[in-house]
């Protein structure tokens, strides 16, 4: 079990990208939440993209923390998008009755970047055309190869 500091938080343009690659225990999850918020403050990023394509299980605890991250980031004027939910995880969440309230979920990194750019205007403004290019280039790299 890795501790919270081993999960990378990458910054590309104005977006923080968080690829979750391991099963996390509760403490790791909370640490990750704290790290994301502190990075948001430090960098002034306006978007958070959490990649869960390698996460094999989302229970009520992780679900609630994802909702919390989205809510807290919003207060800090940043939008959160969760990408890459596995089918087995989605089916289990539906059966559990969890809604992931307040969390925008999209299919993959490409859709996530599109959402942040088109819907929330993050990473697509004038100064960000360069960053948009960066984002797109980054998205086509296999950061979430299963």
């Amino acid at each position, binding site marked *: 079990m890795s501790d919270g500091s081993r999960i990378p938080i990458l910054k590309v343009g104005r977006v923080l990208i968080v690829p979750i690659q391991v099963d996390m225990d509760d403490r790791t999850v909370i640490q990750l939440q704290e790290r994301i918020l502190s990075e948001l403050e430090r960098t002034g990023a306006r978007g958070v993209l959490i990649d869960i394509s390698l996460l094999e299980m989302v229970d009520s605890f992780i679900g609630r923390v994802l909702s919390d991250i989205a809510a807290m980031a919003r207060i800090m004027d940043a939008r959160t998008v969760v990408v890459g939910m596995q089918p087995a995880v989605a089916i289990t969440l539906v059966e559990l009755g969890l809604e992931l309230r307040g969390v925008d*979920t*999209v299919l993959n990194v490409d859709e996530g970047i599109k959402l942040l750019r088109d819907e929330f205007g993050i990473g697509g403004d004038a100064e960000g055309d360069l960053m948009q290019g960066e984002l797109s280039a980054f998205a086509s790299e296999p950061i979430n190869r299963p």
Partner: protein
Amino acid sequence: MADESAPAKTREGGVEELLATRRDEILNLWIQERSESDEFRDELISKKELRAQSRRVIEMLADAIRVSARSEFDDPAFDDLRAYLNELAHTRAVKGYTPSENATYILSLRNVVMPLLAEEFEGRADALVREMNYFTRLLDKMGLVMVDTFIRSREEIIRQQRADMMELSTPVIKVWDKILTMPIIGTLDSRRAQVMMESLLQKIVESGSTIAILDITGVRTMDTLVANHLIKTVTAARLMGARCILTGVSPAIAQTMVQLGIDLSQITTRAQMSDGIKLALEMSGRAVVSAKALSQIASAHSAAAQKAAALAAHGRVITTENQRRADEGAGGAAAAATGTRKSHGFDPEG
């Protein structure tokens, strides 16, 4: 051949002695009886194979009777015979015999042996009755083993075929970039609905499709379990970041769903699959317009009008996406339709 170590009851030599000493005769009669019967399936088994199998049955039966000192079929001495019969039954199940053909095979041995027993025990009525009863009891048990194993094997085969069929009968088809459709045909039971759900969700991930059209035109009836699976599929897809459109809901099924109290307000529905495809295209930022109409709209831009006219001449439907690309090349301004995002909180259809 009498068994010297056995107690008095075998002193006269019973059916096992008959089976041993007149084995070949019995075998020939049995084979003949089988091949002349109506049930003989010479396309399924060769005479040679039948002979080999039958000979083994007779030999193992004789051995088991002797070794067990004429005990009943549940004695451990009969285990090898039972195992062999299981094997035979399974093989015949795979080949396609019917259960009665299987049982008849064994029971027909009685037709052959009984007359011979009568010969051997002529004048000894009590002994004859005893042997006939004993032999009949054994053969009945053997016939039952054949049928039981056979039925279990067949059920296993049917289960496997059903699984194969389920996989093949629910194709998921890509109709456009990022748009999938799953036409569901035939009876939908809970198990099939489960398989379909997993298959669709998997294809959504693999193809990166954000819209899935579920067409149930071909579904005649639906019960609560299946309807719940459908709703579960739509909700799970939404959680993953894909939107589902349900098409082809017949009046009968619409009635059923309402009567079952199923909440369809969360699901986008359309009457026809074609309407679903049109909606899916619009949801992903495209409009379907005739080339003529588009060329009229773009008539202010001669370059665009020329392009549209050229395409119209080929009878091609233009979508705003490739029209925009064409305009970008011509330096014109095209109305770029913005797509709707597929976040689960967003519902353009209400």
